[in-house]
């Protein structure tokens, strides 16, 4: 099936410049508000979709009508008709590894570029583009019937049209014969006129009778037996008049937004053979999570070899969870409106994060936490702070992500590379890799305990003695008393001392407790436990100045 190999946009709305090579199959575009996600779908729709729309000065980047709007869509895996040398020899180009060669050299894939250009007069022109064709020549567009072979359908806010047989609807595409529609409409018109009986319109009888009388008086022979009937001109069953209805005769466009879209999307998938490219605004719009999953799977999110190339925008972690890293693109718009899309499969651990913390990909700032403890701590603090009426992480667009231990460095750098503001919250008991330098240089922030201190070291070193019992209680409750006892034992605490440590710990016990609670299977190494700990123990302004935890809280 035809697939878009490259999209290039110049001077269109919020985009000064964009050059993007999407993937086959699913392409989900995510990014902060105003990052031009919708503009990208709009651009595709304008060039190979509806081609509708009138242009105004506002469609030019920064209202600069001096530079034309140019949108180039380069399409590969071309159908035979478009690959035809006799028809398109001047326009065949080559594509290989993100490069478009104007001439299809050996090893490249033959592609063509469809261009939309809007000049100062705001008049759009569509044509095929290649550097070999002199721009002074009359621009040549692709043939209408060939255009359908490489076209896109958009499911936007208005899906009603897709549930009726209209000029561009999916149902029309699905109907075997295109001209069959006209025949059906004509037949319906005829049937409507035949079915109209005067008996059903007794109220009109007097008027008909007086008309007959007048005809008689005036000797208009042709009108003597006048009858009321439907005027063929008035009854006009036209395009879009035939729509899908449910069993009770209610038109399906009356369905909820979600159902309508689901149905439309399903129809699109069924029409994949006729419509190679699908554009879907706000994939999650009007759908519950289970229906989102269903729809995405139906559209081929899990397919090895996708039947259609799909472009969608989303703000929903539920959608993200259904997708793989290769299917996700993060949009970034620079200060000078150069828009870039980053494929997140390059991010270390992206696969796991999509399942565990999909939100991370949807926010501008990510705080990479070394592990469960750190995530829990941050969450707990956030909940506490928000509870205190202070501004939480959400307001600052911060999401948490699990860096899964030592991988966190790579993850942090990768996130940074694709344009996130990144913070890293790490434990200090492991060696700091070389990557930290790079990370910091690029504006990343690292939150950490003091040198060589693990969280547990820091916790029990800084916690006021009065709060230590509370911390142990949390561990007792959420792990189990036995587990806590066991680790106390292995840290050298005698049986008879356990109760004393639980109730009246002394400064001398701090190191023992740090040792007991730490290690591979530490007490707080679970998100919920750490969260609880942070919420109920580390909440008050009890930290000493030695505790770097305050830095983290302040930063957040």
């Amino acid at each position, binding site marked *: 099936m035809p697939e878009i190999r490259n999209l290039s946009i110049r001077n269109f709305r919020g985009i000064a410049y964009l050059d993007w090579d999407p993937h086959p199959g699913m392409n989900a575009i995510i990014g902060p508000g105003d990052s031009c996600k919708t503009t990208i779908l709009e651009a595709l729709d304008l060039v190979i979709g509806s081609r509708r729309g009138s242009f105004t000065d506002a469609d030019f980047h920064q209202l600069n009508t001096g530079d034309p709007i140019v949108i180039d869509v380069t399409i590969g895996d*071309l159908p*035979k*008709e478009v*690959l*035809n*040398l*006799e028809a398109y*020899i*001047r326009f*065949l180009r*080559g594509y290989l590894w993100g490069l478009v060669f*104007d*001439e*299809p*050299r*050996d*090893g*490249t*894939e*033959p592609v063509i570029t469809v261009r939309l250009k809007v000049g100062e007069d705001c008049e759009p022109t569509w044509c095929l583009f290649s550097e*070999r064709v002199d721009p002074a020549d009359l621009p040549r567009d692709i043939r209408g019937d060939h255009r359908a072979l490489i076209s896109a359908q958009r499911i936007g806010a208005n899906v009603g049209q897709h549930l009726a047989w209209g000029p561009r609807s999916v149902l029309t595409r699905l109907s075997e014969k295109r001209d069959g529609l006209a025949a059906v409409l004509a037949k319906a018109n005829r049937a409507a006129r035949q079915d109209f009986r005067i008996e059903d319109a007794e109220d009109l009888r007097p008027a008909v009778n007086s008309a007959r009388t007048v005809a008689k008086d005036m000797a208009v022979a042709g009108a003597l037996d006048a009858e009321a009937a439907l005027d063929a001109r008035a009854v006009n069953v036209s395009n879009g008049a035939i729509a899908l209805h449910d069993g009770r005769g209610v038109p399906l466009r009356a369905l909820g937004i979600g159902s309508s879209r689901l149905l439309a999307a399903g129809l699109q998938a069924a029409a994949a053979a006729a419509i190679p490219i699908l554009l879907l605004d706000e994939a999650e719009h009007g759908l519950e999570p289970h229906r989102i999953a269903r729809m995405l799977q139906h559209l081929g999110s899990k397919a090895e070899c996708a039947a259609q190339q799909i472009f969608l925008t989303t703000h929903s972690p539920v959608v993200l969870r259904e997708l793989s890293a290769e299917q996700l693109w993060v949009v970034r718009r620079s200060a000078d409106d150069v828009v870039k899309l980053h494929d997140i499969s390059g991010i270390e651990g992206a696969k796991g994060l999509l399942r565990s913390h999909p939100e991370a990909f949807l926010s501008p700032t990510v705080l990479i936490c070394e592990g469960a403890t750190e995530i829990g701590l941050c969450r707990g603090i956030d909940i506490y702070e928000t509870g205190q009426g202070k501004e939480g992480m959400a307001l600052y667009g911060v999401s948490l992500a699990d860096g899964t231990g030592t991988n966190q460095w790579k993850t942090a750098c990768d996130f940074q590379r694709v344009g996130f503001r990144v913070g890293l919250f790490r434990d200090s008991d492991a060696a700091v890799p070389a990557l930290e330098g790079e990370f910091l240089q690029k504006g990343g922030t690292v939150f950490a305990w003091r040198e060589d201190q693990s969280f547990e070291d820091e916790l029990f070193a800084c916690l006021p003695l009065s709060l230590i019992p509370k911390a142990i209680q949390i561990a007792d409750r959420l792990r189990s008393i036995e587990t806590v006892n066991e680790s106390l034992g292995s840290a050298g605490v005698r049986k008879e001392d356990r109760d004393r440590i639980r109730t009246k710990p002394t400064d001398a016990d701090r190191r023992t407790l740090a040792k007991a609670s730490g290690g591979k299977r530490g007490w707080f190494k679970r998100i919920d436990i750490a969260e609880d700990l942070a919420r109920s123990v580390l909440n008050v302004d009890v930290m000493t100045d030695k505790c770097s935890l305050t830095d983290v809280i302040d930063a957040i």
Partner: protein
Amino acid sequence: MVTTDDLLTAERGIVVAPAGCGKTRLLVDTVLASSGERTLVLTHTRAGVAVIRSRLADHSVKSTQCRVATLDNWCGWLASRFPGLSGYVPTGTTRDYQTAQFGAKKVLSSSAIQAAVRATYDRVLVDEYQDCSGLQHEIALALAEVVPTIAFGDPLQRVFDFDRAMPDWANIVEAYRTSWTLDFPWRWENAGELDFGKWILRQRVALEAGRQIDFRSGPPNVRWIQLPTDTRQHRQINLEAVPHPSTKTSVFVLTHKAKTPERREFARQGIRLAVVENADLPDLMTRAAQLQEVRGRSRIELLLDLAHEVMTGIDVAGTLARIDALEKGTARNPAHAEERALIGLAMGADPAELAAILQTLAKARYVFRPDLLESFCDAARLANGERTLKEAAAYVRDRRASLGRKVAPRAVGSTLLLKGLEADHTVVIDADSMKATDLYVAISRGARSLTVVSASPLLPVVR
């Protein structure tokens, strides 16, 4: 017997097609039988293109279903559309076919182009394959790698205007893996002379094997006339060998390709033979160049010279002397209409005048180079302020070439000029100088009779 089905199912193959055995018919039938598919037909001359196109048009084959082009033309088209890959940029009038062919070969080596070729054509048919140069053969093979390709040709019809190295026929046949040979002489069967046709096919086998033909032992259709050693008698014998104009049948007189002036002189003898012109009409171009700028008396002289070249009964020197005398007022007789028109020519500059005078002169005379006369007159009438006579001539030449050649029913030409064409009767004069290929092309033109005039009854002469 090879059928269109054989050709439609073959990945590649070659049809060896002796003259008159229905090659063009088979080719056209193959296109017709491949309904719904797209065929590319490549040949060598524009005349060949015209013949195939008109046959396809007879069966209302749409141009979208079949493209017919010369190999040079198609290569030029392909190469010029990808200048970066081919390194070929057309330079306008003087097209460098060699560069275009090299370019096309490079373009075809791209996998992306190959995919496009595959999407564009379902089958390629290459006609007159024996005329393929080594490079053209390579291009055809490059196409064969991508699309089912069938070649049509006959190694015994390899005649050229100059000597060039050609790919070995055995290698060509091997490259196409499957080969079929047409073996039914349709041309003769249709004329009711099947035995004559079979005899010619047998002689072809002999020539192919390097043996000689003995023209004394042919069927009744074959006549051999011996040339005596006294060359003064040759012209008369040759002239007498040509059937009389009253027979109302078509006649080709064939000579060795190098003997162009001899053919013209032969035609001038008034036995109603028209000279077959070269496809690129070199004489038209020279004459147009000469007459384009010239004024005054030279204009009259050059025009008379052209008239003498194409028709009988023009006395250049005598007419010029008369005109001089008329101008000086020393002439005894007053000027007649032709002379007045010629004198007027010295004053004018309009090319159309040249056409008018030539037409007037031709009325009372026998024109033996009608193609040259007609094309010159066409060019002279087309020339105007925007188009010089030379440009008009080039236009006329190209248009005639793309329309295909129509040869007069009684024509004299070389084997090169008449190959592929058919007449009722053939007269081969000057047969002693012919090689096997020339000889085969010459003897296979006539459907009803063959007359060979030569010193030796055994041809070709062993050197």
